[in-house]
């Protein structure tokens, strides 16, 4: 089985197969083998890699997968080869579609710093959301123009809810 994996900013083609309880994987010219067993406790695996014991949990996230490992969370993007081909073709289009600022967690909108039509710069804070007694400024990743403000101040918002939409500035860095 072949996959395209993006991990720690590096992309690699990965080939793997299983033989009983063993997983054999090749990536970047490296050969990794592990004894694996799925634990009776969700999407959790015990791996023994050359005897080294690791317990890893895999959960889906917005960007792909998250692998939990000894208190750390490592994001991994996994693509099927065909999927990768199709995505490459549509990649250029997606980049020009603008940006949406969403609530990263449930909370209350404390302040709106922009209105429709405002020009904003990459890194500029556009909305403040309070959750768990902490105020959090949300900023935009790219230069743009505000096209929609989807919430009012004092509104309760849920995680992932779209708050503000922006269109890219013509000629700006997308």
């Amino acid at each position, binding site marked *: *089985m072949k996959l395209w*994996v993006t991990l720690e900013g590096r992309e690699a083609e990965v080939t793997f197969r299983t033989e009983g309880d063993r997983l054999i*994987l090749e*990536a970047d010219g490296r050969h*990794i083998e592990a004894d694996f067993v799925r634990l009776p406790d969700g999407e959790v695996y015990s791996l023994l890699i050359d005897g080294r014991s690791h*317990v890893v949990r895999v959960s889906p996230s917005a960007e792909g997968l998250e692998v939990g490992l000894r208190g750390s*969370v490592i994001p*991994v993007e996994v693509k099927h080869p065909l*999927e990768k081909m199709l995505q490459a073709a549509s990649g250029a289009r997606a980049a020009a579609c603008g940006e949406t600022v969403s609530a990263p967690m449930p909370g209350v909108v404390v302040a709106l710093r922009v209105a429709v039509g405002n020009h904003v710069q990459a890194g500029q804070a556009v909305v403040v959301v309070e*959750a768990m007694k902490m105020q959090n400024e949300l900023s935009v990743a790219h230069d743009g123009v505000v096209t929609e403000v989807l919430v009012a101040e004092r509104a309760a918002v849920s995680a992932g809810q779209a708050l503000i939409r922006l269109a890219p500035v013509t000629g700006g860095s997308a």
Partner: protein
Amino acid sequence: MPRLQRVLIANRGEIAVRILRTLRETGRTSIAIFSEPDRTALHVLMADEAYPVGPGPSHESYLNMERVLETAKRVRADAIHPGYGFFAENEAFARACAQAGIVFIGPSPETIAALGDKLAARKAALAAGVPVVPGSPGPVDSREDVKRFAKEMGYPLMLKAAAGGGGKGMRVVRSDAELATAWDLTRGEARAAFGDERVFVERFIERPRHVEAQILGDATGRVAFLGERECSVQRRHQKLLEETPCPAFDDATRRAFGEAAGRVAKQVGYRSAGTVEFILDEQRRFYFLEVNTRLQVEHPVTEMVTGLDLVAEQLRVAEGDELSFGDAPPEPRGWSMEARIIAEDPARNFLPSVGVIERVRFPQGPGVRNDSGIYRGYEVPVFYDSLLSKLVVWGGDREQARRRLARALDEFVLEGPHHNLAFQAWLALHPEFAAGNLSTQFLEEHWRPDALKPGPEATNAALLAAALHERSERQRVQIGRREDARGASAWKWMNRQRGGR
């Protein structure tokens, strides 16, 4: 005073659980209160009794004074333990309890009031002969006054908004030249932020440590000093890791420090558990900051080295009894550290996180104590603070405590919301932390988010885990549509990906 048999805990989360444990161990009835989203909170499940006090927002439930007192009266509570936060340092609440014939477990309303006013507290400390950060006795009126101060004390100085708080309205000034612009800026900010442009001057303490004294007073006027706690590792004025003893103290410093804290407490006739906060400069001189008139989040480290139960002592004092150890507080033994386990994402500037606790396995074994308010399946509510659990360790010396902390953090399984376990592990293993070189600037000086980058072994494990996950996903797809050709199966993958799994 009769025995306090039925005690209502006007709090939630880990501290409510902490208090009810002592109530149970001392044969008292524990009475929990809860807001609507807290119906399934651990303190409700563990208490002997539990009663609702309103909707999620604190001011409609835990801070709804009328409702809480009405509940306490209706269920015939003998006493109320306020924990920390909420009503813990609220003079009016303490007074209302007394009027309702309910014992408030804490200092008297007068003490709370006197120490709640920071200027009055500072005066009490001065009256007790305890050093405060040198500064102007009141607001300064002009730039020239500041310059005169600078001649006396030397730069750097700190301009502080009189009405400030929470780290706002403060500015460091290092020379007469800097003062020129700083004066107007600070006053302008103070006016804008607090509607009050009065400004104080204080000597600026570079790389200060935050060290505090645990005190315990009883009705006979006796005040015991139960050792210090070092709480320097902070972020946005929130403590992250506390320990006792303070690695910068020698016996002479400790003796002087304990005497100073005791003098402040006696000055105000302090009763029950309290904390006298100081800052310590690089020459190990300490300066009074303020008194917290309550049980502190980090009180367990003191319990670990003294063997005392501070909640049990509070109950004794509230019943009019003497302290359990009379005039001889136990000698502290060994070293203790507490790591606050918080729902936040260190990789995204410590953004708070919420969600369901999908899996939790607390570290166990020798020298480990967990004070926690969570359990598997519990949903962390959005209304309250993000402290999930306190991991407390004990060791024979600082090195054993620190290594044990690292071991326990490594063993801690917590999945669901983002959390700071990996950050705390980074801290425990940092060479400057290991050397005891602490200050409130520790994170500014040492923390970089890429410190949590996984090593090659972890990366390999993650790669294998991702492959195993895809394999089982694929098997599921193939079992589900066994008749499908390869192409159709790949389309299904696409859809799943687009659906934002």
